[in-house]
């Protein structure tokens, strides 16, 4: 009988601890598992004991949004002030939660086979021992009411859920927007980081308010060829590319984005080799060169001829338009917002 009393009081103390741990702001808790989201590591009706807030990626933690709504999942990511958890059996992680919601780290799991049978035996013994008291208290009027409350109370407590939605909220972020230099063609690319949503088509694509046709639209990116005149203007003035995108998304979504791309083309090189002018511009961004050729024979005055050329994706070998003993070339070009001038002796 003494053993029974001790067992009964231990059980009552445990129940009190379970209830109190929900309300007290202490990193300690005893939880009954009611969903299979952590199987096979933690099964339904196992008891998990959680202590302390010292957790790392891979640990199982309990976080609670209310006193009664708690989730016991594994930590998969920790960032500043937020944690991401995921049930082992769940296909997707939970939404990021403030780390302040973490109640404690699970340190011990008591299998259901260990704790259920003794509790059932103990409860049966309690009912048997106090049968006379129960019989005197439960008058016929109270029997159905007490039964109803007992059954529903037990069901509500035992089956209380600990996981909420497995809802994939669509998220879309800009990963990067850049221009890929393919020598003769500039390909502008806009890449996204997407979760639960994808691009299905582009309804409007503009660079500096000029419509362009996409070359390729994938679930998470758009690529298009940069128009030559736009590239020439942007490089000459040193402008950032303004790309505006209107795209259709899966799940009935619509995206409107405006992105800026900083251009960093290599500076053109102009040199005179073997009575010719070589203009090197290896990038895909065209650069316009105004060349004034000055030429003269010995003892004669200088004469001038102007030519214009656009170079991109490599170099250009420019022969003087005239043949003379003395030839100079004044090369002028505008690049990244600055005017450049070089005078070269060609012959």
């Amino acid at each position, binding site marked *: 009988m003494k053993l029974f009393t001790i067992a009964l009081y231990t059980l009552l103390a445990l129940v009190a601890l379970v209830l109190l741990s929900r309300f007290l702001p202490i990193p300690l808790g005893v939880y009954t598992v009611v969903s299979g989201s952590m199987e096979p590591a933690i099964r339904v009706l196992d008891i998990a004991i959680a202590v302390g807030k010292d957790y790392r990626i891979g640990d199982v933690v309990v976080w609670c949004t209310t006193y009664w709504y708690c989730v016991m999942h594994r930590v998969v990511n920790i960032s500043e002030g937020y944690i991401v958890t995921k049930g082992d059996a769940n296909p997707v992680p939970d939404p990021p939660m403030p780390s302040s919601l973490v109640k404690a780290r699970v340190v011990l799991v008591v299998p259901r086979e260990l704790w259920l049978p003794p509790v059932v035996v103990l409860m049966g013994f309690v009912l048997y021992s106090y049968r006379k008291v129960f019989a005197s208290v439960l008058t016929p009027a109270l029997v159905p009411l007490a039964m109803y409350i007992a059954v529903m109370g037990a069901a509500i407590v035992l089956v*209380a*859920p600990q996981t909420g939605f497995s*809802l994939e909220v*669509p998220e879309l972020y800009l990963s990067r927007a850049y221009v890929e230099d393919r020598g003769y063609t500039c390909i502008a690319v806009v890449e996204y980081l997407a979760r639960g949503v994808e691009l299905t088509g582009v309804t409007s694509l503009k660079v500096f308010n000029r419509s362009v046709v996409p070359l390729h639209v994938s679930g998470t990116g758009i690529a298009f060829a940069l128009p030559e005149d736009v590239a020439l203007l942007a490089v000459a003035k040193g402008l950032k590319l303004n790309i505006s*995108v209107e795209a259709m998304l899966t*799940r*009935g*979504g*619509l995206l409107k984005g405006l992105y800026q791309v900083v251009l960093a083309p290599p500076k053109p090189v102009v040199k005179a080799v073997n009575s010719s002018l070589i203009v090197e511009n290896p990038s895909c961004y065209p650069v316009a060169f105004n060349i004034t050729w000055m030429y003269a024979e010995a003892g004669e005055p200088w004469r001038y001829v102007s030519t214009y050329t656009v170079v991109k994706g490599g170099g250009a070998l420019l022969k003087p338009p005239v043949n003379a003993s003395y030839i100079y070339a004044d090369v002028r070009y505008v690049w990244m917002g600055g005017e450049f001038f070089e005078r070269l002796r060609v012959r």
Partner: protein
Amino acid sequence: MLRIAFSVATAIEISTAFLYIFSPLIVFRGGVEGFYSLYTYNIVFLGEAVRSDVLNYTNSMALLATLIYTSLQVLAIATAFSRRFEYIELSFGAALASIPCYGILSGLTTVALRELSRIPTTSRVVTLAGTIVFPETQVFKGPTQTLATAFLIASAVKLTLMATVLYMQLKALRT
């Protein structure tokens, strides 16, 4: 006559209870489509079916509470016609189960509404990618609140009738 009135009131109350759990509590239209009732739910969030342990729990608990309550009400009707005082007492006790049943259904409604409020219904999200617009969601409330009131009124009438039966039985016993 009183006992027949009690039985009729109990039958009406049971019907109201079932209407309460079967009728939609909330109906979504737009980006979020579907409905939730205490019996079942079917919610699609931007094309993805919503699954929630909490909503499954409220459904199963509501159904369990209503079924046990119904069986107790059947017991109440069956024993109400007896002449034995103990049976009348039993009938009264069974009839009283509608009070916790109402409490449980109200509590489950609150839990379900709290869970449903976690479904994002904002249609416009601004991220580094720009402005993302999803179809707007309209939320309509179902007739559950009215049915809950009807359930309460039916319970009050039923319990008054049962109390009268009990009182008359007691009076008859004393005389």
